C-alpha cells in the first residue's frame, strides 16, 4: 500500500463517521412516501409542564418541575401578571380543564394524557384523548382563513416543512383556554409558532414560541419532548369527561326477562 493510498484510506476512515452519522440518523426516523417525516403515532410528554410552565417547588396540587420556559419566567405585562396571580389563586375551579373544556394550543400537546397523530401528505390530524377534540395541521400550502376574527379553541394551524422540521403557524385562537394549571393565560391575540422535530423514531422535540402583545412584553419559548407509546396494543381511550356530571342518568338499566 503506497503512502498516498494509506493517507487516503485514513482520511476516508476519519470521514466515514461524519458522513454516515447524519445519513444514519435520517434513516432512523419514519417517513411518508413523499419523504417527509412521519409523525404518526400516539404521543405523550413526561414533563410536568401542564402543572406549571414556570419552575416551581412541590405544592398540594402539583409535583415539582424545573419549568419548560426558556429563561424560566414568562414575560407578562404588569396588568396581565396581576390577572395571572388571580387565576393562580382560583385555579381549582377557574381552570377550563376542570370543566373538561378543549385544552387549546399549545396546552393540549403537553397535557399529561396521550394524543394520536394521524398523518397524510395534506395534513396532520391530532386526536386528543382528553375530550376527543380534533386539531388539523394543514401541510398543503393553504393559508390562514381570510376572516380574521375566528376564535378556535385549538387555533388555525398552517404548516410548512423546513427540512425535516415541521413549522406550524397557529392563529385565530379564543382567549378562553389557559396555558397550564397554574393560571398562565393569553388573549385572542396569541400567535404560536411550533417546531416539531423527530429526534429519533420514538421522540419528538416540540418547541413553541408564544407571542401576544396584549399579555406578554415579548415573545417567549417553551420546549418539551414527546415520547411514543410503544406498549403492546396501546390505543387512545376516549375521555369525554365533560359528560361526567350527567352520565349517571344513562343508560337505561338492562333487565333481561
Amino acid at each position, binding site marked *: 500500500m503506497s503512502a498516498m493510498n494509506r493517507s487516503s484510506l485514513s482520511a476516508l476512515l476519519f470521514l466515514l463517521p461524519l458522513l454516515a452519522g447524519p445519513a444514519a440518523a435520517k434513516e432512523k426516523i419514519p417517513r411518508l412516501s413523499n419523504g417527509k417525516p412521519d409523525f*404518526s403515532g400516539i404521543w405523550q410528554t413526561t414533563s410536568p409542564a401542564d402543572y406549571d410552565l414556570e419552575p416551581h417547588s412541590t405544592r398540594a396540587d402539583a409535583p415539582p418541575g424545573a419549568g419548560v420556559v426558556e429563561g424560566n419566567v414568562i414575560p407578562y405585562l404588569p396588568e396581565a401578571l396581576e390577572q395571572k396571580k388571580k387565576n393562580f389563586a382560583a385555579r381549582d375551579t377557574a381552570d377550563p380543564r376542570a*370543566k373538561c373544556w*378543549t385544552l387549546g394550543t399549545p396546552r393540549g400537546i403537553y397535557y399529561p394524557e396521550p394524543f394520536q397523530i394521524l398523518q*397524510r401528505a395534506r395534513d396532520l390530524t391530532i386526536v386528543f384523548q382528553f375530550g376527543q377534540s380534533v386539531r388539523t395541521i394543514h401541510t398543503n400550502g393553504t*393559508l390562514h382563513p381570510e376572516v380574521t376574527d*375566528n376564535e378556535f379553541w385549538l387555533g388555525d394551524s398552517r404548516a410548512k416543512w423546513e427540512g425535516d422540521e415541521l413549522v406550524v403557524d397557529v392563529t385565530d385562537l379564543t382567549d378562553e383556554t389557559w396555558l397550564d394549571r397554574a393560571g398562565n393565560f393569553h388573549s385572542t391575540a396569541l400567535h404560536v409558532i411550533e417546531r416539531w422535530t423527530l429526534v429519533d423514531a420514538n421522540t419528538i422535540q416540540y418547541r413553541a414560541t408564544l407571542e401576544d402583545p396584549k399579555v406578554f412584553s415579548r415573545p417567549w419559548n417553551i420546549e418539551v419532548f414527546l415520547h411514543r407509546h410503544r406498549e403492546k396494543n396501546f390505543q387512545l381511550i376516549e375521555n369525554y369527561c365533560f359528560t361526567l*356530571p350527567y352520565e349517571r342518568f*344513562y343508560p337505561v338499566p338492562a333487565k333481561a326477562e
Partner: protein
Amino acid sequence: MTFPHTLTLAIAFLMASGTAFAQEPTPGSGIQIEKVVPKIESGKWTGHRLEDGQPDVEGHWSNTIANHNNWTDPQGGVPGDPAARNRPQKPRNERAPSRVSDPPDGEVPFQPWAREVQQDLLAHFHNPTREDYVEPLARCAPAGVPKSFTWHGYEIRQYPGYVLFLFNSGTRIIHLDGKPHLPDNIKLWNADSRGRWEGNTLIVDVANNNAKARFARTGEFASENVKIEERYIFDNGGQRYNYVATITDATVYTRPWTATIPAKRWGVNEPDNGWHYEAQLANNPGKPPVAERYERICVENNGPFGNVAVLAPKK
C-alpha cells in the same frame, strides 16, 4: 364538579324546538333529501385506492333521509311534538321507510319491558321531568353508535391501519390492525371499533358500548351488553354508501335486528348548507378549491349540540 346549567339548557332547547331552531329545519325541508334507500351490493371495489390499498372513501358524507327525530319513521317528526309545523305533512306511505330494515315490520324487536321504557322516554321527550328523560345529545354528549350517522354531516379520513370519523358530536377511530378489543369493563360513548375491508365493504365490530347515547329522540336504546356489526357498503361510483348495522342485545331485544342508513358524499363544489355539509373553502388563492372542516366544540359554548367554533363577525 357540577353543571347545574346542563338540564336547564337541555330543557330550554326542547322548548325552543317547538318553535324554531336554526339547526333543526322542519320535516320536509333541507335535511330530508330523499325518501328511498338505494340498493348497494357488497362486492368488489373497483374505485380509487389509497396507498395502503384501502378503498378511498375519504371526504364529507351525510345521511340522505332525515335527522334523529324519529328512528322508525325518520321523516315523521317526534310524535307528540306540540308544534304543528313539526308534524309530518305527508301520509306514512309517502315518507321514508323505517331505519329498521329487519325485522320486515320496521319495528325494533324490544322485549316488553324495554318497549315500555322506550314509550315512556318518548312520552316525556317534550317535557323531560326527570334527568334521564333528557336526550343526552342535547347536553353535548357524543351522539354515539349508530346515532352519529343521522346527526349532521361528518368527515371520513383514512390512514394505514385506521379509518377516522369526525362527527358533529364526537370522534371515532376504527382500528384496522386486528388488535383485541379493550377490556370488557371499559364502556365508551363511541364504543371500541375493530374494522376490516372486504371489497367495497368496511366491516366493523363494535364492542365496549356504554349505551348511554340513544338512537333517536323517540327513545330507542340498547344496554351495555350490545354488540353491533356494522357494514359500510360503498358504491363503486364513490358517491354513495349504505350503513347497515346488525344490533344484538339479548337483554333488551327478542332477536338481533338490522338498521340501514343511506348516505351520500358532498363535494367541494357544493355550498355549505348548514347541516349535511358544513365545510369551508380553504384560503388557497389561484389554486383548485379545497374543502376544510373547522373544529367542533359544544360544551364550551354553554349551549347544546356540536357547534362550529366560528363566531359571527364582531360588530
